[in-house]
């Protein structure tokens, strides 16, 4: 290829970019490589993942986004590694349908596991292509070239070199990759370039600092709430006081003193808009609405577990059983069993969701969202706008932390509907009550566990069954109206997927069964108690039960809980995390609750472990229980964590720390309260979370690096065993077995009687 390109066409090509690309400097190229315009943004094109700026730095384009755990940085490190560039010279653009293909957004802790891995594979191909170009440019065979610090260099003579910038800076790769035909998390691409061997890693395994931290800390960065678009109005929604009710009449006179207020109504959907934000706050407060009379739909939180036990089963599932479980139970010398209960929990994101929909006036729109899945969320907004999905660009902007499917996707669809009904660009922000009260919930469940024990005290069978609401009453993929409140409130029928999980572990019991059953959602239309993904969907509830019961089985067989796990776990990596956590924590073996008490304070230590999609985590919690008040303090937490090869140890550590605090919050405090009419947990008083005075005194994290194992996720693994470690520690401290979360003072105290 030896084409003359003039500067004008280069400029045109650069102008089409949404990133600033420095134009090539004075150095002439021997040949011109690549394309001057970005090839179509499709998964097969190398240009969809990586480009080289004129100064030789790189930009990668990530169809995921980072929620504050540094997975964007980790993915950029993986790209830098393959491109032989220092990390400072690799920028990453994320979560924008205009610049990246759909890699599924932040989802299932796959940011690095799948998102980063796909980018790294593309980057390996980019490096391969750069070497081919370098070969032509330098007139040296490719196999006699190497890359270093952004240049292709002759192996024999380091003076013979050409930089990436000189080769293709400011232009676009125009070659293709082999694509696995998947979009979303599973998207993977591959070219002729192969990934570097671990021994040559320079960037992976180091801890550069996150780039989003300084602007966040100094207040200069944008959140969704900071986005302003021309001509936009502010909006608030008005949710029914009784779930399932719709507005029968609306008294417009009740808000007529508020300038510019407009009422937006379509079937059960009701909102107000006004030019000034405070005016919509007032209007939402003041508007008089008569709601339809509906039968209160809920059992109330006090009766939720009875409801679950009695509810019809919609779907059953489970893992392939091992051995003959029934026979083992028939022949058992002793059978132990227990039931565990976990409540609905809320995302309760730090700020209520916000979405901005900008109408471009030409049949196109832009959605600014903090949702974890902007590619899908933009489709959700497009559906409500009545626009084809390719006419709505979704741009992710940081929002309040999102740990699964929070309220962000509903806000985007609501904003789309309001924009359609008003014909105006809209910025919608929920109230605190809209957010905590009406966000999708982590589902409530009950778990029944049984173990058969023979006359010699061996566990011969294990039977674990869960029953609860599906984790997908609404899908995490926010693209369909039936999965969004705006769709559901405007007459689209629900379409829940019935799915539950089983414990993920490697206990080698000879006979083993793990099953689940799901029950119908509580309401056949827009519901504040719809089950959805909340950080490690079902993981905390299932492993609270299964790992508490492992403890019960250990004591029932006169075995120390760590020794029990070491005896029965089969996978070496699982054994390694349990041992590492126990060693680091100074585990003290025991075969009964130690009940160490001084004054009012009982102290105990508990262990639990779980796998999660390749990752293995063991937790040892050391708690103090005030036997007078029932209050639990997790004084010290030790985590041993193996998620394969470690990309950035510092950010991994921070991610695990966040898991610890959020897990602690969920197991000590969090329960969505509701009466027969609606959710009554609507703010931080009625949905309390961890307070600073309750933060652990010390946290020890043991990172186990497995350089030859592909990276798996770290965003959720620690959430799994955490609650059980705390419950097991409470048992060690007090002899009280807590089988219902959260472990509130009342519940703990009730165990003393």
């Amino acid at each position: 290829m030896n084409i003359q390109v003039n500067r004008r066409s280069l400029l045109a090509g650069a102008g089409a970019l949404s990133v600033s690309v420095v134009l090539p400097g004075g150095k002439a190229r021997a040949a011109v490589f690549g394309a001057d315009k970005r090839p179509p943004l499709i998964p097969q094109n190398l240009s969809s993942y990586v480009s080289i700026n004129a100064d030789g730095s790189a930009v990668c384009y990530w169809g995921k986004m980072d929620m504050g755990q540094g997975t964007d940085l980790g993915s950029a490190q993986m790209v830098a590694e393959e491109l032989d560039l220092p990390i400072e010279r690799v920028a990453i653009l994320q979560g924008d349908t205009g610049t990246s293909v759909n890699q599924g957004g932040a989802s299932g802790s796959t940011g690095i596991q799948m998102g980063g891995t796909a980018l790294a594979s593309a980057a390996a191909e980019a490096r391969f292509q750069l070497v081919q170009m370098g070969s032509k440019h330098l007139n040296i065979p490719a196999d006699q070239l190497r890359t270093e610090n952004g240049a292709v260099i002759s192996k024999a003579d380091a003076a013979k070199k050409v930089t990436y910038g000189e080769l293709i800076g400011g232009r676009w790769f125009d070659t293709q990759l082999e694509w696995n035909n998947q979009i979303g998390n599973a998207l993977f691409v591959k070219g002729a370039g192969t990934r570097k061997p671990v021994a040559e890693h320079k960037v992976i395994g180091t801890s550069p600092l996150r780039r989003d931290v300084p602007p966040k800390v100094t207040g200069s960065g944008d959140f969704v709430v900071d986005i302003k678009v021309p001509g936009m109005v502010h909006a608030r929604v008005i949710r029914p006081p009784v779930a399932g009710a719709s507005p029968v009449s609306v008294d417009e006179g009740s808000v007529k003193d508020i300038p510019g207020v407009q009422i937006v109504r379509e079937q059960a959907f009701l909102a107000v808009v006004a030019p000034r934000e405070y005016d919509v706050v007032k209007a939402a407060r003041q508007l008089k609405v008569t709601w339809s009379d509906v039968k209160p739909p809920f059992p109330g939180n006090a009766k939720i577990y009875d409801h679950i036990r009695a509810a019809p089963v919609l779907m059953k599932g489970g893992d392939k059983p091992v051995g003959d479980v029934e026979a083992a139970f028939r022949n058992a010398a002793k059978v132990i069993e227990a039931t565990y209960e976990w409540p609905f929990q809320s995302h309760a994101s730090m700020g209520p969701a916000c979405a901005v929909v900008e109408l471009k006036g030409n049949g196109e729109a832009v959605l600014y969202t903090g949702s974890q899945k902007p590619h899908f969320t933009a489709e959700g907004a497009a559906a409500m706008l009545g626009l084809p999905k390719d006419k709505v660009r979704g741009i992710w902007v940081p929002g309040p932390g999102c740990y699964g499917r929070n309220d962000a996707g509903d806000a985007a669809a609501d904003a789309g509907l309001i924009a359609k009904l008003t014909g105006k660009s809209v910025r919608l922000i929920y109230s605190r009550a809209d957010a905590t009260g009406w966000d999708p919930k982590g589902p409530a469940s009950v778990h029944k566990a049984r173990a058969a024990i023979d006359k010699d005290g061996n566990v011969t069978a294990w039977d674990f069954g869960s029953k609860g609401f599906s984790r997908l009453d609404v899908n995490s993929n926010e693209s369909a109206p039936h999965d969004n409140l705006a769709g559901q409130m405007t007459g689209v029928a629900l379409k829940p997927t019935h799915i539950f999980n089983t414990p993920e572990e490697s206990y080698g019991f000879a006979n083993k069964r793990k099953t689940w059953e799901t029950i119908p959602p509580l309401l056949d239309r827009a519901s504040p108690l719809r089950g959805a993904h909340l950080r490690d969907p079902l993981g905390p509830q299932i492993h609270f039960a299964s790992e508490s019961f492992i403890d019960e089985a250990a004591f029932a067989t006169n075995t120390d809980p760590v020794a029990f796990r070491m005896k029965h776990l089969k996978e070496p990596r699982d054994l390694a995390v349990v041992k590492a956590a126990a060693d680091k924590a100074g585990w003290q073996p025991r075969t009964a609750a130690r009940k160490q008490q001084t004054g009012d304070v009982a102290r105990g230590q508990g262990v639990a472990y779980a796998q999660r999609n390749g990752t293995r985590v063991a937790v040892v919690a050391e708690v103090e229980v005030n036997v007078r008040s029932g209050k639990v303090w997790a004084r010290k937490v030790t985590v041993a964590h193996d998620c394969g090869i470690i990309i950035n140890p510092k950010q991994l550590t921070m991610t695990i720390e966040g898991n610890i605090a959020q897990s602690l919050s969920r197991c000590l405090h969090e329960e969505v309260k509701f009466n027969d009419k609606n959710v009554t947990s609507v703010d931080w008083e009625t949905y309390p979370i961890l307070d600073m005075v309750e933060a652990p005194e010390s946290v020890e994290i043991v990172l186990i690096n497995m350089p030859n194992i592909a990276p798996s996720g770290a965003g959720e693994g620690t959430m799994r065993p955490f609650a059980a470690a705390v419950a097991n520690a409470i048992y060690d401290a007090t002899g009280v077995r807590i089988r219902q979360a959260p472990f509130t003072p009342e519940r703990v105290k009730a165990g003393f009687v």
Partner: protein
Amino acid sequence: MEGDAPVCRKRRDPVAKIDLNVDGKAHVIDADPAMPLLYALRDDLGLKNPRFGCGLAQCGACTVLVDGVPMRSCVMPVESMTGRKVTTLAGIQKDGKPHKVQQAFIDEQVPQCGYCLNGWVMTSVALLESNPQPTDAQIREALTGLKCRCGTHISMLRAVKRAAQA
């Protein structure tokens, strides 16, 4: 289903001229005197922070310093700000350099989403002003009531201790 602090219904002038001094700059806005300061900062002055987290004085996302004292701007009527100095997260920097508390939060890589930071940073700034060498217990006590949903509590404690050493 109320999600915000009570709106003052005793309406005098629906709109009045209000003087504000924010981050060292004087402003005059036309606003409902009962409107919380937060909306003036965000909507009228176009500042990016503080942020709306609850509107109920329960979380701290809207925290600003008023005459050096951390206050929750989501419940402070804008009219009560006349003659007082409001400082936001962006305003505690000196000569374009982060405040030592901000620098410690950066060094410790504290924030995840960062939405909560106004409360924690501003309250820590005020704490270190009044008590430059706080104990662990005093830091926890000073920061009690603030919310961080991402669970960055552990690194925040480290950061405040680091700032106290700086």
